[in-house]
């Protein structure tokens, strides 16, 4: 089974779960005064879930023939290991790490670390250029966000900022 039909199967599962929630779990919690309303919070989701299940089945059962030849600009997922899969996964992990470290480590250290580590993952080895560039960029973005846009971004690690 091709990837697009596997995805349709996953989406079908999600839609079934969503439909179950809409049809069977939402109406019980409805306050009595809202029961006279012609539309309930679950009305629209019910319609959506039915239509989405039908659409997912349509794709899953392959009623529609897709274009056979892959487009020149696209990546052939069947040969995913031919591409730089390791780098992509490492960068995704790095992004998750950045999300988790942004608050505790502070914006400046986290960002410099992210930019430097990201470039290293991609194969950059000239640290004497990379680190100043990353530090400069982090500083400029922090200044723009904090001072120009006026959105607070804690620059240093939480321990330093809160005075130990």
């Amino acid at each position, binding site marked *: 089974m091709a990837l697009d039909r596997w995805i349709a199967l996953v989406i079908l599962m999600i839609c079934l779960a969503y439909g179950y929630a809409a049809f069977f779990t939402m109406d019980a919690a409805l306050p009595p005064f809202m029961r006279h309303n012609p539309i309930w919070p679950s009305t629209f989701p019910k319609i959506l879930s039915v239509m989405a299940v039908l659409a997912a089945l349509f794709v899953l059962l392959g009623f529609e023939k897709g274009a056979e030849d892959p487009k020149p600009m696209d990546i052939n997922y069947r040969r995913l290991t031919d591409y730089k899969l390791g780098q992509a996964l490492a960068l995704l992990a790095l992004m998750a790490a950045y999300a988790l470290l942004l608050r505790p480590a502070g914006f400046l250290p986290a960002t410099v670390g992210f930019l430097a580590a990201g470039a290293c993952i991609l194969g950059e080895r000239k640290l004497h250029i*990379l680190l100043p560039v990353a530090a400069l960029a982090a500083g400029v973005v922090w200044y723009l966000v904090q001072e120009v846009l006026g*959105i607070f971004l804690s620059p240093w690690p939480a321990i330093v900022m809160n005075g130990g």
Partner: protein
Amino acid sequence: MLDGILIGLGTAFSLTNLLMVIGGCLIGTFIGMLPGLGPMSIIAIMIPVAISIGDPSAALILLAGVYYGAIFGGSTSSILINAPGVASTVATSFDGYPLARQGKAGKALTVAAIASFSGGTIGAILLMIFAPALATVALLFHSAEYFALMVVGLSAIAAFAGSGQVGKALLMTLLGLIMATVGEGALFNMPRFTMGIMDLQSGFGFITLAMAMFALPEAMYLVLDPSRSNSGSGSGEIKDLRITREEARAITPVIGRQSVQGFLIGVLPGAGATIASFLGYAVERNIASKEEQEQFGKGSVKGLAAPESANNAACTGSFVPLLTLGIPGSGTTAILLGALIALNVSPGPRLMVDEPQIFWAVIISMYLGNLILLILNLPLIPYIAKVLAVPRNYLIPFILFFTLMGAYIGQNNATELLILVGLGICATVLRFADYPLAPLLIGFILGAMLENNFARSMQLYDGLGFLLERPMTVGLLALAVLLVVLPSYRARRARLRAEGAADAD
């Protein structure tokens, strides 16, 4: 209408707004030139900046400037290094890149710039004529018709998705609508489908979703396939920007035809700049003379001018449904709609009545944006093109960083970043399997409005009675069904007939 134009001139020519257009065009050209970053990603990244400006006209002018700039930048990279940043400039590279290989890069860029300028300007004039007329009609609409109209828009987007894609596009639209129901809507004051997770209480963030659907998969594709960002190669000298009188005479009718055709295609929801540019190229090749047809694909100025004017006119055309009906026809206008809602402006037929300065300022700024691209960016192109030499090792971490910052500034919440990464992975997998992602975002943005209008008509008519009492609603809904069913029915019949013919052999 004259009052409106004057108001628009007044607003657009204020110093701040002029700076917004210039800044937007420059930023757009810069980033749009980077291979793999399309207008959608750039606008998504710029939204937090635009929202923090506060003034809706200025914000919209900035974003619109970024939009034209990005398209212009995208054609530059397709011409110079044969790396179209967006699908709509793929047709540009057919004849643009051969010209650049022949050492006529400067000429190719000039033709592209003139064609874009004319396409954009003619598009803006048509927009000025069409939009008010359409808005007058749209003012007669009730919530029931609105609901039906949005359904038509959404199904048209699915119907124009291309052969073999209608089912997938429809599924993505519905998934977007489903995602829009997560969280506490204004309608019922109760949280829905949050699964008890606090961070989902306010629903998915629209900027987060936009980043996850467009910017992140683009960046992942760049990482996976280094040949997509073959920056540095072929960035030869750009000199001699002039074109000859004969060339000018050859491209004038092409530009005229393709601007009008492109605009009309752009108005249709879901069709957009990509179809306009390919169709423009095909039409011009078919009506060209025999010896000119030989030139197409080998560096014909006509073949370059056709897709360029068509895609710019289509971009302008896509503003018509956005400004008059509040229904976005493309991913980019959907992102703009999201930005407008965040700025407390609701686009739609009332926009021209309630806030004419926004409406007209945007239209006037379209002329300005096109003009700036022509007189400011064209001479600067040799210098801006240096950005193509930025090494990939630096480029990609920065793209990822700006993607993360965009989501973080919008929500000020670190969990949002994890949601962004998770959705981004899903979006990349969906792109592997050739699922179109723009319908999901359009569905997501229209979801709340669709449900509101549906609920309002249900309440007004105490049930589904509005379907019977308003013939226009029924008509529109029938059109929506027809739009979705017809292409797959015809494709199926054609396939069956083809198979039958094969069996008979």
